[in-house]
């Protein structure tokens, strides 16, 4: 932890972090399975997709640490150190989980779309798991705002609020989307925009031009997200045009 950074819980911090992240993962798995049953999609292959998503997420979370270690040519850090102690990135985890599910679909020849199952699950998992980060990681940058905690932004509380609201909205709108799987695209796009903004309150290191590593990562994947959002919007716009013409 750097100078000036504030952390709420010190004793047994790692255990508390692990327990709360575990609660988040468990809640997400329950929601995936409940939603799959509700939509009649709970078949065995979904287990393979879940396994592939978890492995992809676990590996993706550590990629940031690996990159940092490989970058540190002159230092003593090894790939093994990076795997053990390296930064655990939620964005890397989400990207890895997304890629893992795609690989799982290819392996099982699963043709259906699963975004409707995973979107509310990820939102709830993040809303729960982020409590672990809020309690055990540095709060955020210094702030004089009335809701600041010990003079710092409660940046993880902002994220918890975002994911809780997203979860509620996803449940409310889950049957209103023409293509339910697009719920995941909408959620990820909204989170990307929110996360880019909230990074300005986080205690993360600035990489270059005043932006953190997470913000540079988001800028790199922005074209891909924009393309996916455009694909969601295209059929809706065509439907509106056809309706107006009729």
């Amino acid at each position, binding site marked *: 932890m750097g100078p000036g950074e504030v952390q709420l819980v010190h004793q047994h911090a*790692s255990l508390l972090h692990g327990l709360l992240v575990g609660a988040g*993962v468990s809640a997400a798995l329950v929601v995936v399975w409940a939603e799959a049953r509700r939509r009649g999609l709970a078949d065995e292959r979904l*287990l393979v997709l879940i396994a592939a998503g978890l492995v992809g997420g676990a590996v993706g979370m550590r990629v940031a640490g690996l990159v940092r270690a490989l970058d540190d040519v002159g230092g003593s850090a090894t790939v093994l150190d990076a795997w*053990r102690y390296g930064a655990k990135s939620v964005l890397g985890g989400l990207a890895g989980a997304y890629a893992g599910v795609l690989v799982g679909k290819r392996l099982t020849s699963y043709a259906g779309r699963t975004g409707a199952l995973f979107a509310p699950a990820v939102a709830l998992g993040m809303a729960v798991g982020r409590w672990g980060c809020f309690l055990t990681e540095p709060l955020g940058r210094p702030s004089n705002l009335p809701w600041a905690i010990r003079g710092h932004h409660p940046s993880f509380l902002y994220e918890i609020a975002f994911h809780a609201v997203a979860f509620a909205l996803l449940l409310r709108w889950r049957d209103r989307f023409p293509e339910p799987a697009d719920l995941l695209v909408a959620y990820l796009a909204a989170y990307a925009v929110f996360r880019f903004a909230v990074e300005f309150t986080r205690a993360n290191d600035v990489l270059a031009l005043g932006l953190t590593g997470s913000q540079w990562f988001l800028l790199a994947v922005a074209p891909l997200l924009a393309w996916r959002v455009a694909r969601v919007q295209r059929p809706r716009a065509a439907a509106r045009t056809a309706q107006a013409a009729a």
Partner: protein
Amino acid sequence: MSQVPPDDGWGQWPPPAQPERRFAKGAVAGGVLLGIVGTIGLPLLGAVVPVIGPLLFLGLLLGVLVTGIVLAASPGPPVRRGLGLGLVIGWGVTLIVAAGLCVAILSSLG
């Protein structure tokens, strides 16, 4: 002319073919538990062994995943495949949950 047998109240015979189960549910659950215990326990064993500790750590950590994938993809019975799938799920869950936890444990060991 097609011959339709009279309904005798016993439903369709022979019954419609059910899709083959690839994974036994109980084995998946057992595999998840085994995967969690193995992913935490075996690398810890590697960490306390001097000399080959780091290599053992990595080997055992990845060993759980590789064993799971091999079993899950094997042409064996559903119990074996289910156990393999459970190991993979347990490995993934443990590594995500242990993002903060394992750092403290390994630090205290070494």
